[in-house]
């Protein structure tokens, strides 16, 4: 990822540590897979990367999923899961359209804040239910998945938001570019960098890993588990809310079915990117690369002449493959460590 030259003696210098870290990181493998997919697809059809549309699509398509995958990764790291993000995205996307229609001349920033706040509120409901009802997040958020979607359907009915309802400036966000890079991608990457920095460098970020690694130990350490878990769900909801606003900007049309099934793609992206479903392991970088790999493969397969039907199967193979890989690595490591200890006795 960086242009650091490996030092000849793998020792303690910061540079060599970084190289070793990057070389052995779980994220590196998935990044190589992504590069491989892009290279193969480009060899078959150079337009995949080298046409201006191709390059734009490569960056733009996964941008919204990236936001959801970041939130999902944060939640999964605490040994929970958020199935409601697709519904939250749909609801906030529709809310975005309604705000522009019902409040003529509303500033764009207010719409953004409204969408994010609405998402955060829905996330807060998830988090509070998980933390206080002591029911697994899988069940709680499965419930809110249907409830949020139900609210959306009841509210929208057969109505839909059309591109003509939205201000051109706002629509421009969805398609616009800055120095050749789609604005949506820039937003997603900024969120990614902030989230990664937070998870790595702040106490509360590290505590999320601790909670997911061993909730009972986290309790013994005196960490505020309830507050952190709720916060993780709020962040996931807020990112889905941001995703909803950007969804409206990108696609223009929003029906009550917007974002259906996205929660599974977000989970898939996180898992493929090495975020352990059992918590405590993984990075948002991994989840982000996972999101890119997932959607880029979908775009590459038709170019490689593979049927539409197989595209879904390939996603499944990716998920199973990465889980099996993680499991094999974990078993091998623990065997090695036990063997070492037995010899040491």
């Amino acid at each position: 990822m960086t242009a650091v030259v490996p030092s000849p003696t793998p020792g303690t210098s910061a540079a060599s540590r970084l190289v070793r870290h990057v070389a052995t990181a779980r994220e590196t493998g998935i990044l190589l897979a992504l590069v491989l997919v892009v290279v193969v697809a480009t060899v078959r059809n150079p337009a995949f990367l080298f046409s201006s549309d191709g390059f734009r699509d490569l960056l733009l398509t996964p941008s919204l999923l990236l936001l959801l995958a970041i939130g999902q990764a944060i939640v999964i790291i605490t040994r929970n899961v958020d199935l409601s993000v697709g519904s939250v995205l749909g609801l906030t996307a529709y809310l975005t359209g309604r705000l522009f229609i019902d409040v003529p001349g509303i500033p764009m920033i207010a719409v953004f804040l409204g969408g994010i706040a609405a998402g955060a509120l829905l996330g807060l409901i998830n988090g509070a239910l998980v933390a206080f009802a002591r029911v697994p997040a899988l069940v709680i958020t499965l419930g809110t998945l249907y409830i949020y979607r139900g609210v959306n359907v009841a509210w929208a009915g057969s109505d839909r938001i059309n591109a003509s309802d939205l201000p051109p400036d706002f629509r421009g966000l969805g398609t616009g570019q800055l120095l050749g890079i789609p604005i949506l991608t820039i937003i997603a990457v900024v969120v990614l960098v902030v989230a990664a920095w937070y998870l790595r460098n702040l106490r509360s970020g590290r505590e999320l890993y601790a909670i997911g690694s061993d909730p009972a130990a986290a309790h013994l350490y005196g960490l505020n588990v309830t507050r952190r878990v709720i916060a993780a769900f709020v962040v996931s909801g807020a990112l889905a809310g941001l995703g909803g606003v950007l969804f409206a900007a990108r696609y223009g049309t929003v029906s009550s079915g917007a974002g259906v099934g996205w929660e599974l793609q977000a989970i898939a992206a996180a898992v493929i990117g090495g975020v352990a479903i059992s918590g405590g392991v993984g990075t948002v970088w991994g989840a982000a690369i996972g999101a890119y790999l997932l959607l880029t493969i979908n775009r590459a397969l038709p170019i490689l002449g593979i049927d539409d039907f197989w595209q879904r199967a390939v996603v499944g193979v990716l998920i199973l493959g990465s889980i099996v890989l993680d499991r094999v690595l974990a078993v091998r490591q623990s065997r090695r460590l036990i063997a070492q200890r037995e010899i040491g006795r």
Partner: protein
Amino acid sequence: MPDAINTDATAPALELHRVVKSFGPVVALRSGSLTLYPGSIHALIGENGAGKSTLVKIIAGLYHRDSGDFRLRGESVDFSSTSQSKGAGIAVIYQEPTLFPDLSVTENIFMGRQPTNGIGRIDRRAMRQEAQQIFSRLGVSLDPERITEGLSIADQQIIEIAKAISLDASVLIMDEPTAALSGVEVERLFAVARSLRDEGRALLFISHRFDEVFALCDTVTVMRDGSYIDTIPIADTTVDELVRQMVGRDVTELFPKLPSTVGDVVLEVEALTRAGVFRDIAFSVRSGEIVGLAGLVGAGRSEVARAVFGVDVYDSGTVRLHGAPLPKGNPRIATSRGLALVPEDRRKQGLVLDESVTRNVTLAIRSKLARFGLLWGGPENRAAQVWASRLEVKTSALDAEAGTLSGGNQQKVVLGKWLATEPTVLIVDEPTRGIDVGTKAEVHRLLSELAQQGLAIIMISSELPEVLGMADRVLVMREGRLTGEFTREEATPEAVMFAATADAEATI
């Protein structure tokens, strides 16, 4: 800061006086008292269930006492969480270290209170350096950057101690820290403990190994049955005296075992070994006989039982049931040949808590009750009724959820489930743990009657009076090995306790 503590060395660092804690009807701590002084290593000894762990958990802020005094440096305190006791300078190192396996050694030491810079960013370099400093002060070489998963228990305990040091704890409690350590590791731990003592900290050391208590501690407090017994300077006592104080108790309150005719050998275990868990276990059980398997928690007794029954596999050795070898790792075959295991943790391993009493009782004989592969209500209810009435399960209705029953009645349901398979050999693991005294006697009567009817019973129990009162023969395990076998007449509390803790016998 050690200087400040040393100026008034006669004032106790921590005092507990007549502390009481009960869980529902079960009294875990009748009257716990303990006084720790700065610059001293204090031993706390007692049998399993004597209330030591409860006492520690009260100090740690995990449990809240029902009554009694708790003072820290002379001031009355009332902890409702572990972070409060930590903040007050108390560090507890549990028998099983509680670390985050996926995080680095350094992060485990500083989690929740990492050094940060102005904007709250964790200063990783400072953190790593401090960890490194603590390790070099402790004289251990641990890579602060590696993840904690896969570290030996000894290294994990070093991390716990490093945590305590980084907290600058004035009171350090170690709950059986040496249970899983080798000789060298114990020496290293002791050196660390002594240097902490010399800095003026108060240490509490809980151990079952008398040689360690005598080597390390200066004062000892004995507990028995949830009560404080005595506090003595180590120099003024002997192992014999301590053992007597630990076990000195009436056994008559328990149900006396009924006489039964001991028949042929039904279960034979030879040279059973599982690397790192147990080694060279050999014993036999005859029909009509109750064999007590005594020892301390963690001696490997449950593991042997699970291996014999086939839940776990073993590396070498043989198990013979009625003269024929039993294939390993297959509980289904073991059950069909007449072996039954009532596990230690009935809530997790023995019962389906959300299912009815009927369903639980008939769980192990489903295939027998089924007709054309379907379960019919009629036979199921009849079978459950037979056992519920034989075992006198007190429940409002047989369709009540098992989770709603009391501990004693849950245990009876588990027993009923396995007795319904009509076993010839029954292994019960801690059959009366967490059960009130009245129901305890009933479970004892039941086991005794079953033996009279010719059932061979292996009873694993950490409660000495129960083993001595019930067993025809007592086997003792310590650290994965059989260290004693006593007839009913030979089995005195002292003899069994010695075999279980045994410093008499040189290890390897």
